[in-house]
């Protein structure tokens, strides 16, 4: 028998700290596979955020910089400017990127930094215990919106991918998911395209991956994927935005 699928050699032996069924694991795997297939292990520097994926550096065997909350795009800017021949990407959650890090994100996009931004949007703060994020859907219950998110109190969920797609420095914006085999394969293609854009110096590529946080959503992993399809995808529509 021939091996047709196995663990990427760029994934370390560490067992991921993520909850069972967490999308982060799948996305980490895609990042590792993409870097491995492009032969970029020695050329890539990842910037990890604050949030559940703060420990991304434990799982993908490349050089990493752990950034302060929200600041990954500023960190990545300097890393890429000082080492223009390297592949530089940030890996950020929705709290990190679209709340506290909005400024750094928008301005790195606007400067057209030749980096890849991987934005994992699960509409909640996972690490701190399931609080409301800017991306939390209206009506969604979280630790800080226990009666459901109300626009009058909490404002509206927002779509930062659509916002950055308006900026001239951004060459590619896509919204993907990893809840099914087909979605995973598509998401990987999008990542590959983003990495190739950075290599070609085309500007910033923004890859949003709509994800589940089954612990934060208080569902089983399989239920969470169904809930995401029914509730998240109608608002965060999948596909290429730019």
């Amino acid at each position, binding site marked *: *028998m021939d091996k047709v699928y196995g663990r990427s050699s760029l*994934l370390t032996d560490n067992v991921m700290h993520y909850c069972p069924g967490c999308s982060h694991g*799948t996305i980490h795997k895609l990042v590792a596979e993409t870097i491995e297939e492009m032969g970029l292990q020695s050329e890539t520097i990842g910037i990890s955020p604050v949030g559940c994926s703060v420990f991304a550096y434990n799982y993908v065997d490349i050089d990493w910089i752990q950034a302060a909350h929200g600041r990954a795009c500023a960190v990545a800017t300097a890393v890429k400017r000082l080492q223009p021949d390297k592949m530089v990407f940030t890996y950020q959650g929705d709290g990190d990127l679209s709340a506290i890090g909005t400024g750094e994100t928008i301005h790195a996009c606007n400067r057209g930094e030749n980096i890849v931004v991987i934005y994992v949007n699960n509409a909640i703060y996972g690490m701190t215990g399931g609080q409301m994020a800017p991306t939390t859907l209206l009506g969604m219950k979280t630790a800080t919106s226990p009666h459901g998110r109300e626009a009058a109190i909490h404002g509206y969920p927002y779509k930062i991918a659509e916002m950055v797609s308006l900026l001239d420095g951004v060459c590619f914006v896509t919204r993907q998911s990893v809840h099914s*085999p087909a979605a995973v394969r598509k998401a990987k293609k999008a990542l590959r395209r983003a990495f190739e854009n950075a290599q070609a110096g085309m500007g910033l590529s923004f890859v949003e991956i709509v994800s589940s946080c089954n612990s934060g959503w208080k569902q089983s992993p399989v239920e969470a994927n169904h809930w995401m399809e029914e509730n998240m995808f109608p608002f965060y529509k999948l596909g290429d935005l730019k």
Partner: protein
Amino acid sequence: MAEIKGTINVDRERCKGCGVCLGACPFDVLALSAEVNSKGYPFASQVRAEACTGCANCAVVCPDGCIEVFRKIWKK
């Protein structure tokens, strides 16, 4: 016509029993085990091994990278 035969190898200790792979399999090959690993998780195992085509859907969606996939194709 070709006959396709596949099989998988699950890293039982790495598996957290999330069950996402079960629904990804088009042939209902997988189920969660009755026994648990050292961390207390049930793990994915083949209950209809003969139906596996080695399509790798289970491995592709596995968040923890626990599944290796093998495949053989016989041309007839």
